[in-house]
């Protein structure tokens, strides 16, 4: 056998986070039947250990950068950044889930195992250097997410959410695959660097229209996963119907990973035709911001509102992708990290507030939270202010870097329209704050217990991170800047 295909130990090290996650997830599956009812949260703690081990694994892998398994994987700063981000979102989601699962009497090892598998899939995605690996990673992450979205299988909203996510997700994946098939046919390779090489060589490169068409088909798949217009339609329904911690997870983790492959494919493989896809992304970014922000104005359900807000924020990140510059990539990475914190934080409050069966998910139900639980309300306000982009919060610098990158790339109109959009967005976030502080307490807050320890930990950690990123953005931005793709 050809010697270059025999995996070396260093290859396994580069693959360490995924391996560790798989080992722990499998362990949890095995231990699940051996764990008594009511003790299942211990498996969750094991999952937490697994995530921390995976973070350590990612650090070890980052110390040994390079490709692995005949160029299938590429461990670079970019991959490491998103590996950390995925794992981090996993940790935060896990901490929210303890209380949720206990409350819904649905604690089981499978939930934790699926969460770990999904994160493993995201880690594969973000470090993939091959369209095959991207596809498989994407599917691992997605299939686990489909199940998580429908985790409470006796809940009609969960069912519908899972069904919509699954059917539409597979539908969009088929488009992605079709695009991959074409790009393979045109370039004869599925390796990103090789594709870029062929596409940039004008003598070899075939018709630009065909390349554009395959880029378009792949765009459908990626745009769907990041909920970019006009492929954002699924997101509100799915996020609204899924269990609250899962919605938090879906809108932060898989979305960030999807952005990672979006960036990698478009900035590596399709860079030679950037002039063409830039126009499409321009329009898509604008439409995404508009749809997200204006539809969010209409919502009375807070989960749905956060879903539209997540669409709007995807629009801001798309502005950064549109620049296809290193600084834009770094801005997108920073924004995704900042968004992960504030978003999971906001969903943690929803998880806490909704109570059993997610009864209280209307904005009006939050009335009087400012008096009843001032700390929770204050923390939620921090997240909302960060969503708005008020200075000293992470959201401000996120937007600042993105629009700066856009201006550097001469996207003046997109910047102006994006800023206008973020001005509109202030209305609906503000409304939540107004309801919390300035409305008479409703009966929905009367029997509210104080948040469970896990949720409190998430709230404090996310708020601290939101503020720290707002005051010392350089810490993350330097990392992102060094890791950003050229």
């Amino acid at each position, binding site marked *: 056998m050809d010697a270059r295909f025999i995996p070396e130990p260093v290859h396994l090290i580069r693959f360490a986070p*995924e391996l560790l996650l798989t080992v722990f997830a499998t362990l949890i599956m095995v231990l699940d039947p051996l764990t008594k009812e009511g003790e299942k949260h211990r498996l969750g703690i094991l999952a937490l250990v697994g995530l921390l081990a995976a973070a350590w694994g990612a650090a070890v892998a980052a110390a040994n950068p390079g490709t692995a398994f005949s160029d299938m994987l590429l461990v670079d700063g970019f991959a490491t950044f998103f590996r950390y981000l995925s794992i981090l979102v996993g940790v935060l989601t896990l901490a929210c889930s303890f209380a949720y699962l206990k409350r819904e009497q649905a604690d089981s090892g499978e939930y934790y195992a699926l969460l770990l598998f999904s994160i493993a899939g995201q880690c594969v995605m973000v470090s993939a250097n091959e369209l095959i690996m991207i596809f498989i990673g994407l599917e691992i992450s997605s299939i686990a997410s489909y199940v998580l979205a429908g985790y409470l299988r006796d809940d009609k909203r969960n069912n519908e959410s899972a069904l919509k996510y699954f059917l539409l997700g597979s539908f969009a994946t088929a488009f992605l695959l079709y695009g991959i098939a074409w790009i393979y046919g045109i370039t004869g390779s599925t390796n990103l660097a090789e594709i870029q090489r062929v596409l940039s060589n004008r003598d070899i490169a075939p018709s630009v229209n065909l390349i554009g068409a395959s880029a378009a088909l792949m765009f459908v798949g990626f745009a769907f996963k990041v909920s970019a217009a006009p492929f954002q339609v699924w997101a509100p329904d799915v996020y609204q119907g899924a269990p609250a911690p899962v919605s938090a997870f879906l809108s932060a983790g898989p979305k960030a990973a999807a952005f990672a492959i979006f960036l990698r494919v478009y900035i590596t493989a399709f860079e030679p035709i950037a002039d063409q896809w830039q126009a499409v992304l321009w329009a898509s970014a604008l439409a995404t911001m508009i749809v997200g922000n204006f539809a969010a104005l209409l919502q009375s359900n807070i989960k749905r509102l956060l879903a539209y807000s997540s669409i709007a924020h995807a629009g801001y990140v798309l502005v950064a992708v549109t620049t296809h510059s290193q600084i834009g990539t770094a801005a997108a990475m920073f924004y995704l990290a900042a968004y992960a914190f504030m978003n999971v934080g906001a969903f943690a409050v929803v998880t806490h507030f909704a109570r059993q069966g997610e009864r209280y998910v209307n904005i009006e139900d939050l009335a009087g939270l400012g008096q009843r639980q001032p700390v929770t309300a204050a923390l939620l306000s921090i997240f909302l202010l960060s969503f708005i982009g008020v200075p000293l919060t992470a959201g401000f610098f996120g937007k600042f870097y993105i629009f700066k990158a856009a201006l550097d790339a001469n996207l003046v109109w997109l910047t102006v329209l994006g800023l206008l959009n973020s001005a509109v967005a202030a209305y609906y976030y503000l409304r939540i704050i107004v309801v919390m502080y300035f409305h008479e307490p409703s009966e929905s807050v009367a029997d509210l217990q104080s948040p469970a320890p896990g949720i409190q930990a998430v709230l404090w950690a996310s708020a601290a991170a939101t503020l720290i990123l707002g005051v010392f953005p350089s810490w993350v931005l330097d990392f992102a800047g060094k890791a950003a793709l050229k």
Partner: protein
Amino acid sequence: MDAILFLIFAAIAVGCGVNLVVQRHPISSALSLVGVMAALAVLYLLLGAEFMAAAQMIVYAGAIMVLFVFTIMLLNAGSERKTDKALFARLFGVPALIGFIVLIGFLIRTLLPKTENVVFGTFTEGTARGVGLKLFTEYLLPFEVTSLLILIAILGAVVLARKEI
């Protein structure tokens, strides 16, 4: 000979595909899909994809479609009722679809570099040996990672379909 085989089986594939779309009863659609798959298996053979033709029959037509048929029987799914809730789908879906096919057909016809003719037997790498060699060397990692995928599928099916929590 190649041309005739192609035309026959392409016709079968398209015919069965159309049937899938127009049939009201899911079981008819499922059987049509099996027909498409079988026809495609022959076309794979023509293209020199021996291993894939076999896998297509065994995995796709054999395993996956049996699962489908089984589910249809289990749920006792009858003919679908006529509803007109999906107004948008009716108004825009079909024109969009026609546009899609025309567009892709157009792109292929006019833009793909003048393609060679497919002659059976000129490409013989697609045997189990050829595929296996690649699969266990270059594509070792994705192959191993798909095991994870299957594991998740089993786990997911168990989570969703078992009797009580």
